[in-house]
């Protein structure tokens, strides 16, 4: 899996990988969703037109988290009745995958964390407290979101989704957790809320009139 470049099996355009371990990516030209199967790229679907994105972050944005640099290589976009948010897939300098969530310019960094015995989707409520990795978290909000699309490189196949429930949890010291009920068993992401300035982001989008 060391190959860093390939061609889109659909349109033949070159597909460049920023991260050699990517399992899935999208073709920037024909919007095909491409999944690595053995040594081949296989087209599994097509991304619908993504809505205009108000996020200042883009694929290729670099930043620093806990003194380690990272680069954003992909994203998953969700929508719900109160707006939308991006889960940016970050590849850290040590090769780990992390997620930078960006909801109305509020940011959190989290890592997929294996965890047994998460409450089922119908058992989780706002205000509920639970112990995750030795820390008590409080469920602050439940969001039923619609998978809206993907872009770029992801560490797993993620394309055949529809609606999913997310539980956001927080602590007094700005730790942050999300339980993603789109999978069974659900996935746990643990991390922390971060300030925009703390991430020292580079290669951001430019907005006209805002320099």
């Amino acid at each position: 899996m060391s190959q860093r470049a390939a061609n889109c099996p659909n349109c033949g355009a070159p597909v460049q990988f920023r991260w050699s371990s990517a399992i899935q990516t999208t073709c920037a030209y024909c919007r095909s969703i491409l999944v690595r199967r053995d040594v081949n790229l296989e087209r599994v679907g097509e991304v619908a037109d993504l809505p205009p994105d108000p996020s200042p972050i883009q694929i290729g944005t670099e930043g620093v988290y806990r003194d380690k640099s990272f680069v954003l290589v992909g994203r998953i976009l969700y929508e719900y009745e109160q707006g939308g948010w991006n889960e940016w897939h970050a590849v850290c300098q040590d090769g780990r995958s992390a997620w930078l969530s960006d909801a109305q310019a509020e940011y959190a960094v989290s890592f997929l964390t294996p965890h047994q015995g998460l409450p089922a989707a119908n058992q989780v409520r706002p205000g509920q407290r639970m112990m995750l990795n030795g820390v008590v978290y409080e469920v602050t909000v439940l969001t039923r979101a619609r998978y809206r699309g993907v872009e770029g490189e992801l560490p797993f196949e993620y394309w055949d989704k529809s609606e999913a429930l997310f539980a956001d949890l927080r602590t007094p010291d700005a730790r942050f957790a999300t339980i993603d009920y789109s999978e069974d068993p659900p996935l746990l992401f643990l991390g922390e809320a971060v300030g925009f300035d703390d991430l020292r982001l580079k290669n951001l989008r430019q907005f006209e009139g805002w320099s």
Partner: protein
Amino acid sequence: MSASAQVRALNCSSCGAPLTVRAFQHTLSVVCGNCLSVLDAKDPNLRVLQRFQERQRVLPRIPMGTRGKVRGDPYEVVGFQVRTITVDGEQYSWSEYLLFNPYKGFRYLTEYQGHWNDVVTLRNVPEVDTGGQRPRARLLGETYDHFQTAEAETTFVLGEFPWQVRVGDRAMVMDFVSPPRILSRESTGSETVWSLGEYMTGAQVWQAFQLPGGPPAAQGVFANQPSPYTGKVRGIWGLWGILTLLLVLVGLLAYTFTGREEVFRRMYSFSPRAGGEVSFVTDVFELKGRPSSAEVKVSTDLSNNWAYFQFALINADTGQAYDFGREVSHYFGRDSDGAWREGGPSDSATVPAVPAGRYYLRVEPEMDAGAAAMRYELVVRRDVPSLGFLFIAAGLLLIPPIFTTVRAVVFSQRRWAESDYASTDSDDGDSGDDD
């Protein structure tokens, strides 16, 4: 792959007036500035969410689209809402300005009767302690006292919002204060959001947004308005301590270094059994220099006995007399509790501000008729430091700190008068140095 974010110019689907969406695709609802209809900004046809606002139009003090600098970053005013609580049948309304920066996100400016707060939503969930008399909230090591809980209703909206806003939106708002900060917990049925505000003066807001004219004057004392006496109370008492210490030092120095010139010393004896005229006058002695104090000290050999001395310090040339008396009593012994002692064999009197001149003393001793004879010595010293002025100065020094403390307490009372705890006496921990 996605179209670029940009400011959009649209037309109201209700009245056709032009309107601007400034916060890109973050905006979920936008209010027509002309007909005040609330529109769904996500809908291509700008579906009307709410047709009219019953309340009277409110003119924001900062117009929509104004840019300013908050905490070093540029922000644009994109939304405005008025929220109202009802307490004891009285309605109280405050304004909230929604500020937007595409990188830093949203923040708020709130205004109530000329008092402003810079508010950000929190990434942390403060801990609430409801165990005590009043709930407290803790955030990053700081404790906030509960101020008020009320249901806030949105009574007017203008501009745009990253949520689906409606006139009539309701939320329970719990405020906790630790001036100059205020911690607010807002809960609707489905969500709880904490925010942290920091007090700003109108002048600071006017400066930040380069607004014309002057800000409205602040009325009363606001929940998290920093007390102008914070630190001052402690500071002024600290200053008082230093000055009082200096005063004591001055007193000690004066006591050590003033002249204390001995001008007269002589031994006498007195026997009450002798009878006859007991009063006598001493030789003349001279008091020199500027008017200053003179000390008359009497030292006796009294033991388990007492004597009374009537003195007059008399100017030999003018006849002016200073009359004073001193009782000397000296008793001691031993009982079941051990040795005891009362009084002493000597005493002194200081006559202040005696002008220079030639003086003598008239002395009239008195004892019990049957008492044994007593020997005593009279010593007169010039320029003995009088420390009375020090006590007056110490008293005067107390006035400013007491004055400031009282003002701080009054400020604190005015702050809490607007809270849920207005009826309680405000000396339960909130008085003293208000902070």
